[in-house]
């Protein structure tokens, strides 16, 4: 399996390998997505224990949903990160007492020596650039919705701005991110 972006056929093969419990396929998927899933867990759930549990559950959920993966309808990274985010937000909302660490979008990027680390660096860099395309208020809005699990209504009520305005701003921000990502294989 190449180190760069995967072709749809390769993504399908990996998911089929996951479904079959193939050691190589699971480890390949973990090498690509284990760290981002764990990172998301750390960000949303706040502890290593919760993030590790989330990571394990995300791969199990991916195995359960493997039959629904269709590479013609979206990339593997989107599919897996959506599973991860949905699981994490569910837990965040359920465990209201969870400690939420301060969000760090940019900090010291680790040295990248292995292909996996280099790919992670490129992905991180591209995502940061996409976020940088947003205004400060759009970025804050996206962070509240995506990383804190706040609904548009909750944001509207907290900030005392119309619900429709929140929805429009979220949509505008996502479209900007989408445009910034165009041509990049995250």
């Amino acid at each position, binding site marked *: 399996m190449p180190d760069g972006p995967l072709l749809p056929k390769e993504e399908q093969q990996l998911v089929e390998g996951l479904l079959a*419990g193939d050691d190589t396929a699971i480890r390949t998927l973990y090498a690509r997505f284990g760290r981002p899933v*764990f990172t998301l867990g750390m960000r949303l759930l706040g502890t290593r224990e919760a993030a590790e549990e989330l990571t394990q559950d995300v*791969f199990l959920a991916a195995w359960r949903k493997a039959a629904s993966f269709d590479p013609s309808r*979206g990339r593997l990274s989107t599919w897996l990160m959506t599973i991860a985010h*949905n699981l994490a*937000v569910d837990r965040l909302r359920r465990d209201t007492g969870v400690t939420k660490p301060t969000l760090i979008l940019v900090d010291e990027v680790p040295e990248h020596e292995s292909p996996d680390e280099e790919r992670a660096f490129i992905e991180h860099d591209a*995502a940061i650039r996409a976020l940088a395309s947003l205004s400060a208020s759009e970025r804050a809005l996206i962070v509240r919705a995506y990383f804190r699990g706040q609904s548009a209504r909750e944001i509207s009520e907290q900030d005392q701005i119309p619900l429709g305005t929140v929805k429009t701003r979220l949509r505008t921000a*996502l479209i900007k991110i989408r445009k910034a990502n165009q041509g990049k294989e995250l």
Partner: protein
Amino acid sequence: MTCSAARTLLPERSLGTLTGRNATELERHLAWCAACRKEARELGAAAASLVFALAPREPAPELEDRVVAAVQHAASGRTPAHRRGRMVVAATVAAMLAVAGLGFGAVMAGRAARFRDIAITTSVRNRDAVATFRQILQSIEFTDPGNSVEMGQLTQVHGGPASGTALTLLAPSGQDMAVVTVAALRVDPARFPLVVTLVGPKAKVRVGAIAKVDSGGAATIAAQLDQDLAGLDQVVIRDVGGDVVLRGELTSRQLQSPSPRP
């Protein structure tokens, strides 16, 4: 839900914060609207990319082995693969028989004015149903060597042209499936719904209810049941008053499956 309304909800769906009735209605809309589905995909990809903006955190090295072990343990049961194959079976059987039933109804409405014609057509239809079941099972993923099939013919209790076919798919997981089709069934509408039950020496399981039949007296129900249907060898269809309308006996069928998937 209109496309305009759907698109106001798509950002929240992409960000994972849409819940409740809005979420349900949006999913319904997306099921048929390709344009909104395309936008949902694009916004979803944009949202998913946000994960990579977080400063990476390193999980413990042993987490990889734990993940691999957990997935392999789950995969050793292979339930999703079975379920997927079985759902394909259920959907295919139901769809094909529904089409067959409609075709039968149209034929009956035009041609089968006489009892003898009805009986002949019903006989042909049942033979076709059995052939269809067999063909489906041989052509799709029904591959676990532990799976087995039981099939039977249903006949009208008090005489008459009505008949039917029943099939059960028995899986080692105990999550079994039943498909029952009836034909040429003439029953007073007041006696519906008809309840289909599988009965054994020690247990019985309700498969479902037939709410109505088409103009040819045909109907099909298919159900996946999280119960073990092994040993339930009688199929009984009762009307709303509890009177038996059709009944039959299931027997094991040897159906050759394709080669097991790796």
